[in-house]
């Protein structure tokens, strides 16, 4: 994270040649720099509180410190998934490009957070249950969420025209939340069929309180800020990609028209020389001109 700070602090002119009057050379802007700063300071603060200041837990000992990053990641993963579904729904309803890109950005960030949640979940599980993976209800549904998000991102990258891609991704995005709800429900029933909810399942187990609760709270806030910062940047990146695609289109229309005018003059001149349009000569003449 610190490397990012120094880069964006560089005077814009230095980074991009013709950036003109202080126009940002990347997806950064004054707002995101502040947000990035807050995120970094928050992270340092969370590290102090989570790793050093807060006490060990009676049951888990130091392992509870993993939860200060694990639980916020899981919460943000589900938030990202919710934003994607909302964005897809608004795109389908109102054809707004803005929401379509928000859905895409949020899904990608959601996948990153889900991945983090799974890894930290396994690392928390190893010392607690002795194995990396336990078919626990929450861990399993997070894994399914990860697969659903990968499916969505796969549709986002299909080799097709932009409108086709956006529409199909929106349908998959729209179904993301219903799918997750159904998956959670079935996995919950399935696991409680065999053993009551494990220690880990109900989140704030072993009555976490005091400084630990505060650390947990700081974790949620800091990760929230990081999520927002990532979302803004990823959205702008997607916006840039679209602008580039769009420019390609306008140039194509201009070229196409220029080509038509050129042909019109040539075939016009040919007709002047030989008035009857059905003469094969004109046709071949037109061909040659192309």
């Amino acid at each position, binding site marked *: 994270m610190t490397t990012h700070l120094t880069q964006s602090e560089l005077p814009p002119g230095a980074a991009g040649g013709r950036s003109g009057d202080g126009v940002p050379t990347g997806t950064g802007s004054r707002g995101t720099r502040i947000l990035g700063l807050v995120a970094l300071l928050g992270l340092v603060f969370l590290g102090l509180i989570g790793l050093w200041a807060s006490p060990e837990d009676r049951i888990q000992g130091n392992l509870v410190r993993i939860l200060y990053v694990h639980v916020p990641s899981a919460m943000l993963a589900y938030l990202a998934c919710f934003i994607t579904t909302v964005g897809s729904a608004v795109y389908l309803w109102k054809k707004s490009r803005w929401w379509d890109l928000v859905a895409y950005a949020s899904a990608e960030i959601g996948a990153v957070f889900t991945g983090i949640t799974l890894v930290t979940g396994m690392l928390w599980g190893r010392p607690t249950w002795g194995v990396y993976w336990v078919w626990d209800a929450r861990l399993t549904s997070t894994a399914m969420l990860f697969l659903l998000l*990968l*499916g969505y991102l796969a549709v986002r990258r299909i*080799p097709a025209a932009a*409108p086709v891609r956006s529409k*199909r991704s929106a349908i998959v995005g729209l179904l993301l939340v219903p799918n997750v709800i*159904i*998956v959670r429900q079935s996995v919950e029933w*399935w696991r409680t*069929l065999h053993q009551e909810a494990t220690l880990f399942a109900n989140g704030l187990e072993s009555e976490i309180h005091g400084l630990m609760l505060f650390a947990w709270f700081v974790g949620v806030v800091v990760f929230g800020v990081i999520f927002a910062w990532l979302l803004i940047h990823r959205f702008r990146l997607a916006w840039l990609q679209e602008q580039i695609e769009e420019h390609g289109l306008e140039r194509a229309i201009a070229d196409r028209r220029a080509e038509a005018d050129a042909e019109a003059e040539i075939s016009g001149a040919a007709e002047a020389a030989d008035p009857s349009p059905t003469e094969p000569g004109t046709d071949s003449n037109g061909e040659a001109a192309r």
Partner: protein
Amino acid sequence: MFRDAALIAGKDLRLEARSRVALNQVVPFALLVLVLFAFALDPDRGILSRATPGLYWIAVLFSALLAIQRAFTIESADGNRDALRLSGLDPAGIYLGKAAAIAVQLAVLEVLLGIGVAVLYSTHLAGWGLLVVTCVGATAAIAAAGTLYGVLAAGLRVRETLLPLLLLPVLAPVLIASTRAFEAALSGATADGWPWVGLLAVFALVYIVAGVVGFGPLLEET
């Protein structure tokens, strides 16, 4: 809408009757999967009989993938998408028709597979009421979700790999529900099975609504 659905389903099934792809390729594939499971799980150590419901439904799920892939290959003749859009058929009708055709083929497959399981794994079939209702619910759920994701992947060069990646995670709850319901039926504790059937019904309903709403915009892309 339902008139168009009947027309499309009729067309799909007539096309299947003529080409016999489902019967000649998908059903043998399903039986092959059962046999491979038997090889993998040594029959006389009892694992096979305990896992029968799960293996049955995995075989159905994989065969459903082939049936869905096939259902959209027949629509991939060039000019077909334009013909469908110009045909005057209601997109929702096209969705329901294709889903119904897939459901019918799946139902036939499930019956044949049921016989295969009863014979190969010598399972004692019991709790018929629950078995049949679960099959109906699961078939509706697989056909409804399969048709929607089938059209999402249709027409793409990457459709063979995209469809499983999209569909199988979504169908995971169907696999869980139908397997647990079957276990309840076979073990005689049929009362435990009914909540799972409820889940299947909800799943099928969600996807039928999504399909009816989503098929039009998907057909409309240029």
